[in-house]
């Protein structure tokens, strides 16, 4: 990351006509186009696929993943990674279910869960930044820790019977055209909107991009690098806890083995949305589109209906492959393959 990030030589900069998408928005546009293509293919192939409700269900079913992906986008934009998010989702669910079962009121439970996520994220960020341990290792340890704590709290699945939780879980907001969404879906969209605002219109957002672009330059420019890096993990931790609550609304239970492997889904969504794992390049809207792409792949599987469990995995893998390859072929960066 030293010689490669110097200013591009005059010959290598692509001449950009006004109105042409920049290197940052082009992958997002491509993801969007491919998403529309997938939706079109689904509509042609299956009856009743083409409906607003199918589209809205993508948000309803993947609300928690959207929130996870938003947190992950912040982390990946700084060039880091957070493997703990799936385990934190499970921990939040188990903790919430356990506290509710112990007779706590729902609002303090939610606040406690969010605080635990914030604390865990901040702690991991502090270790990564101040003790200079690699993010992959710290968050992997965080993943083990959170999963382990789940088992310490309860090995069994705990049902959630709190009236407020069940009310949120069962309520639906009717939209024009005889369609509906869940409150969780709206919350997820709101999180995306807030994240987009923070990333593109605040000083903190600029610092996130600057740190990911080149940490050393960002420091020389006097940006608060340390604070920014700790903050992104705190954001990711809080988002994971919020996602855990949404997952709790969705499943109405807390289970230690919930959301295993979700961290990879979140990372995949972020990357499919055009964010570079090396940091500095990406849009949070892309991550939303990434989640929708993963969601529509699942919808395909459920519309097909006859696939046995192993074919499901293979088809998901193949569709992911097709998508990633198509995106790669459509978005050609000058640096090319390694």
């Amino acid at each position, binding site marked *: 990351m030293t010689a*490669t990030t110097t200013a591009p030589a005059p010959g290598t900069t692509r001449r950009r006509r006004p109105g042409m998408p920049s290197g940052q928005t082009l992958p997002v546009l491509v993801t969007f186009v491919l998403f529309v293509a997938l939706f079109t293919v689904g509509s042609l192939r299956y009856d009743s696929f083409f409906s607003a409700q199918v589209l809205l269900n993508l948000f309803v079913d993947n609300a928690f993943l959207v929130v996870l992906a938003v947190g992950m986008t912040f982390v990946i934009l700084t060039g880091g990674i957070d493997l703990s998010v799936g385990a934190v989702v499970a921990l939040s669910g188990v903790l919430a279910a356990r506290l509710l079962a112990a007779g706590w009121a729902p609002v303090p439970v939610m606040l406690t869960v969010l605080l635990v996520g914030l604390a865990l994220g901040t702690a991991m960020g502090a270790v990564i930044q101040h003790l200079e*341990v690699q993010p992959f290792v710290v968050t992997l340890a965080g993943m083990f820790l959170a999963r382990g704590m789940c*088992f310490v709290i309860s090995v069994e699945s705990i049902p959630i019977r709190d009236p407020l939780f069940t009310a949120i879980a069962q309520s639906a907001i009717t939209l024009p055209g005889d369609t509906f969404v869940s409150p969780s879906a709206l919350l997820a969209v709101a999180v995306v909107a807030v994240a987009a605002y923070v990333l593109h219109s605040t000083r903190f957002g600029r610092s996130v991009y600057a740190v990911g672009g080149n940490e050393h330059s960002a420091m020389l420019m*006097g*940006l608060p690098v340390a604070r920014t890096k700790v903050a992104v993990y705190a954001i990711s931790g809080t988002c994971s806890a919020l996602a855990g609550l949404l997952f709790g609304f969705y499943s109405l239970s807390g289970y230690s083995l919930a959301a295993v492997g979700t961290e990879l889904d979140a990372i995949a969504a972020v990357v499919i949305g055009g964010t570079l794992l090396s940091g500095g390049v990406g849009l949070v809207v892309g991550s939303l589109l990434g989640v929708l792409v993963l969601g529509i792949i699942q919808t395909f599987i459920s519309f097909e209906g006859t696939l046995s469990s192993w074919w499901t995995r293979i088809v998901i893998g193949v569709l992911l492959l097709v998508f990633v390859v198509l995106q790669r072929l459509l978005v050609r*960066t000058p*640096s090319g393959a*390694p």
Partner: protein
Amino acid sequence: MRSPLLWPLLALAGLLLYNLLVTPAFFALRVQDGHLFGSVVDVLRNGAPTALIALAMTLVIATRGIDLSVGASVAISGAVACTWIAGSPDPTSPGTAVVAVLLAVGLCLVLGTFNGFLVAGLGIQPIIATLVLMTAGRGLAQLITDGQIVTVSNPFFSGIGGGFLLGLPIPVLVTAAAFAVVALVTRRTALGLLVESVGVNPTASRLAGIRARGIVWSVYVLAAVCAGVAGLMISSTVNAADANNAGLWIELDAILAVVIGGTLLTGGRYSITGTLVGALVLQTLTTTVYTTGIRPEVTLVFKALVIIAVCLLQSPKLRGSSTRRRRGSPPPAAPPTPLVTEPTPASAR
């Protein structure tokens, strides 16, 4: 300069010392039918598949990549071998076992080539490229075994995981040989240097005349083949192929072993000895947890704490020499600079 291996070795020594004090039987070795038995031998034997995968992962990570699909390759390799043996007309003959092994390793060669094509050929980010096979791989393994756990009873095949040669378990010998060969090939020739140069800067190394693409491609092939051999070890130890659980999360253990050994995930510098020590630390830790009788639910917490301890101890060494960054608060914030509003465009990388 102190060796970067200092802290991992100390961690290993600490774990062994703990065992010496708490469970002295840990070090008891006995020879039975000319074969060596004991907890220490168990550590080596059970750790062999992870160590073998970690060895290849070291080179993958040295090229700034990562391979998430090795666990799936482990499952596929076991599934292919066991299904072939179970379906053959003569399921107990050595010939059947040899064909099964060749089939499994051959298929993994293809899988590695596929991963290498995605990463080196198409230039897809390694974590996503290998995520494809990670997702689809277990499904493939289940397809091969038809969703069943395939059990076999072939003495020759069992020998791969459970056999002994010169009194030592065969998996240990295979892994040791692999380490020796890779260490010799990469450290006694320029190959290791080339791998590191690709990890530091793929474009620059290509411009310098290094066949970066070929090197990246071959490390993924090596990773898949090592995973295939590890899969044979794992499935032959239990004489069965479990498509769902064989090698589950082994990629994380392998990556962890590499990192504990002092290799940076950002590529460009690696230590094969470090990986070996890292794999031993992990396996000793696992065995210690079992022999000490810690509650199984708390095992993950315990593992997390030890990992973080090892990495914390190692950390100043890890990066202190390479970056001289100021700790603590940065200088008082300068007025916001308009320079950073535009993040580095993709075209600059």
